[in-house]
């Protein structure tokens, strides 16, 4: 145990910060409140995004063809990238425009 006790606390704290960033933010992005997507016309809304299958969308790799509840039109949508959105925006956008909860 003596080796462990002697370990630099700063390294441990940085590792904590790193792991927190690595896991918390990405987990929020994937787990919820609900995934936020952007359609080709730029409308942003929360939808249900199941990797394995979908009933109301046609999956085209990272894109899906589904109805946009904001613009009321059929379009290609893709999930927002983490670099495009902050944690607060994910929550705010997801609360603003909700799609029907069918995958």
């Amino acid at each position, binding site marked *: 145990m003596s080796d462990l006790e002697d370990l630099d606390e700063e390294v441990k704290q940085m590792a904590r910060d790193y792991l927190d960033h690595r*896991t918390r933010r990405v987990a929020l992005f994937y787990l919820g409140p609900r995934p936020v997507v952007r359609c080709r016309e730029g409308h942003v809304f929360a939808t249900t995004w199941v990797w394995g299958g979908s009933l109301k969308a046609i999956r085209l790799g990272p894109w899906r063809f589904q109805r946009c509840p904001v613009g009321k039109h059929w379009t290609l949508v893709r999930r927002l990238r983490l670099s495009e959105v902050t944690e607060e925006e994910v929550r705010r956008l997801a609360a603003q425009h909700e799609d029907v909860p069918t*995958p």
Partner: protein
Amino acid sequence: MGLTISPVTAKGSEEAAFESAVVAPHAERLLRLALAVVDDPGEAQDAVQETLLVAWRHWASWARLTNPSAWLTRVCVHQCVHRRRLLKRWVFWPPDQWAAATANVPELDVRLLDLHRAYRHLSPSQRAVLYLHLQDGLSVESCAGQLGIRPGTARSHLGRALSKLRKELLDV
């Protein structure tokens, strides 16, 4: 919820019981663990999905598990290791998806990027112990219990992981 488990054979109350006993209390924890172990968020999600499917297959004997949380942790880490091996086998240079996903994120400190470079060289077991110890606040003995390894082995993984991280930071 973005991550959804829908066992095709699950029916009514069984599905609801599985959801409340396994998915709701453990899915996020397992995803965070998987994100710590593998570099690709998609792979992490698949590892959790596989873990939950394994749990569903063992649902009949779920009540007999003495520590379901530790059992899920072990299965999840095993799935991560398995997927990491598959990725290495089929992709010569697996892309650093996590770094790509978090690129240009303003709050990511430059030193954390240095740490990230060192972190990439840690083995899955070292990552799992480091995560459970630092993020979940488990003792080395508890980490060993969660992962089904001996405390000495867990201590060794943790020591080596921290040593590699420290070396990278001191070298910069």
